[in-house]
């Protein structure tokens, strides 16, 4: 052997090994768990305890859910089926099988279920071009414009001429506005147009619709408001209140900032009054007191009354949410718009509101979700929203004592709607992100 260091050194590497992946103990699932769940003894203990708790919970709940009671026709039958299957406790799903249609449609005539279903589908088509303006053709906005007229017609039925005449009121108002707008101040023209339109709706549209109906009787079977119930009722009230409260809330927020003291204090008074009163009180007013103030003989539909109250309530909150967005805008944005010669409404529409509303998206959507869930409060004025229906179902001898199954079903559907709204708001925020300022 020569005197190379091969003798003095035990081993010399002659070829280099290729670089290896980090050992699995520091990456992947194990690495992640080691880093996040078992770093230190305290964390390890907490992880183990929490894990046992979750496992226990699942072991407890899953058997309850997986219960062979789908075909039961009463609570007692459920209990027999559960014992027969060898369990001590189990859900009674028979109630859902028997009553799901009622939970969705209330006492709406079953042969007419297609009408609320079509209305719901139309709702989706109508909101698509508004919510997803990037993907959905603007042509669908025609559906959006028609929806407020078609939806009530589908739900309540009656002659087709009523919604047509209602829409015609807007056309007439618009034409009047166009006719006057050159000659008098913009505000006055708008005012005259509004008066003419209201006169049309109150005095003439009913007569004209009747006349048309007698010539060409196109009509759907009428359905009374008392037959409305379940999610159909919640969605009807919710959609109407949500759709109306945003524009009204924006106007209230702007009014609150107005330089005109009368406008300002009216808006402040309205907002503070509504926010100071519980919604339930307003609903009671809608169901009982309102009739006292209305001229005798007018039969103002209870659902419309509830929608009005819900809308007013939501608008007051919306106004404050929007005001928050307005307050967050730097003063420079107003000055930038002013210095270019944009007038007040142009500045609001093109510069201020797009930014203020974007800032307020989380608050606006929270308010929307709140409005939708609060529609369940109408059960206290004996309308049959899903919660009211669940009480009604329990009043039946066969299902007396069924709570969880109904509430889980109702909760799950509410969750789908509310969670979608919440996800949409996140999507929208991301979409409107235009780089840091």
């Amino acid at each position: 052997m020569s005197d190379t260091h091969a003798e003095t050194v035990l081993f010399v590497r002659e070829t280099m090994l290729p670089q290896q992946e980090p050992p699995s103990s520091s990456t992947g699932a194990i690495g992640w768990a080691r880093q996040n769940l078992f770093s230190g003894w305290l964390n390890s203990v907490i992880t183990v305890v929490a894990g046992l708790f979750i496992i226990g919970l699942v072991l407890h709940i899953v058997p309850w859910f997986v219960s062979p009671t789908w075909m039961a026709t009463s609570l007692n039958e459920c209990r027999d089926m559960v014992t027969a299957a060898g369990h001590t406790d189990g859900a009674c799903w028979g109630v859902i099988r028997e009553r799901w249609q009622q939970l969705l449609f209330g006492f709406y005539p079953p042969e007419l279920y297609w009408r609320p279903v079509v209305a719901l589908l139309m709702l989706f088509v109508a909101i698509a071009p508004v919510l997803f303006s990037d993907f959905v053709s603007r042509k669908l906005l025609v559906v959006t414009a028609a929806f407020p007229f078609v939806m009530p017609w589908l739900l309540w039925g009656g002659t087709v001429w009523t919604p047509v005449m209602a829409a015609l009121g807007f056309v007439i108002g618009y034409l009047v506005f166009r006719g006057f707008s050159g000659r008098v101040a913009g505000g006055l023209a708008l005012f005259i147009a509004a008066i003419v339109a209201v006169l049309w709706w109150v005095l003439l549209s009913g007569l004209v619709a009747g006349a048309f109906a007698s010539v060409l009787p196109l009509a759907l079977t009428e359905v009374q408001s008392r037959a409305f119930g379940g999610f159909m009722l919640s969605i009807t009230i919710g959609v109407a209140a949500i759709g109306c409260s945003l524009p009204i809330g924006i106007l209230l927020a702007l009014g609150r900032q107005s330089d005109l003291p009368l406008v300002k204090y009216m808006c402040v008074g309205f907002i503070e009054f509504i926010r100071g009163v519980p919604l339930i009180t307003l609903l009671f007013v809608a169901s009982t007191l309102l009739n006292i103030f209305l001229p005798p003989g007018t039969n103002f539909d209870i659902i419309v009354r509830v929608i009005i109250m819900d809308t007013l309530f939501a608008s007051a909150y919306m106004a404050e949410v929007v005001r928050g967005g307005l307050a967050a805008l730097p003063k420079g944005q107003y000055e930038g718009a002013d210095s270019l010669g944009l007038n007040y409404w142009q500045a609001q529409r093109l510069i201020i509101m797009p930014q203020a509303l974007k800032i307020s998206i989380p608050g606006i959507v929270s308010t929307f979700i709140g409005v939708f869930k609060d529609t369940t409060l109408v059960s206290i004025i004996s309308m049959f929203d899903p919660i009211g229906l669940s009480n009604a179902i329990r009043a039946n001898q066969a299902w007396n004592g069924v709570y969880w199954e109904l509430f889980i079903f109702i909760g799950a559907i509410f969750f789908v709607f509310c969670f979608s709204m919440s996800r949409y708001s996140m999507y929208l925020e991301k979409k409107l992100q235009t780089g840091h300022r």
Partner: protein
Amino acid sequence: MTDTAFQTTAAPSSLKVSDEVAIEIVNMNKWYGNFHVLRDINLTVNRGERIVIAGPSGSGKSTMIRCINRLEEHQSGKIIVDGTELTSDLKNIDKIRSEVGMCFQHFNLFPHLTILENCTLAPIWVRKVPRKEAIDTAMHFLEKVKIPDQANKYPGQLSGGQQQRVAIARSLCMKPRIMLFDEPTSALDPEMIKEVLDTMIQLAEEGMTMLCVTHEMGFARQVANRVIFMDQGQIVEQNEPEEFFNNPRSERTKLFLSQILGH
């Protein structure tokens, strides 16, 4: 020609100032509550004049030029812009604002609109220019301020100097007859200051009537034909730049100049 805003291209020294009056301020006073911000301001600006306004902080420089397009309201005296007196009549105010461009210290671009949309918005909505034509004009002025390639970005994606040049282009798209600048470079880093000043110098050379609040004395020397010094709400001194810097008359001006040029 698309740009009526740029009339001549002579060198600054030979720039003509017409006899036509662009802005006339007569005995104007303004208060914030009890605080007398502007005292008896008298100022006549001819068309084509380039005026630099200097003065210590809080002396009312911003307030004065903001009165000219009614971002602030004055309480007594008269302001006549382009022959129209500023009163509380909203029609007059919007008309004057569309004739008077303004650039701010913090740019005040609209962050939710692209650069191009920022520039076309007012021409389309205020001047009722067809969209196509507004875009052409906007691109023309964006080229003039040397950032046509940024047209489809958002303001948040641009540097401060670029944003200020967009702000200038945005004002120019309205084809204003007068431009107001309120410390357009004081929020910028030194190397960006130069690019903005170059744009402003170019504008001055093309004959724009300009009122400029700035502490850039080099700019004042190069383009201004009058420097106005304000202190405590009053116009203390006004003169041609050379005279103003070399032979200031009032003590207050001397003190100010020694502070600003002394180091």
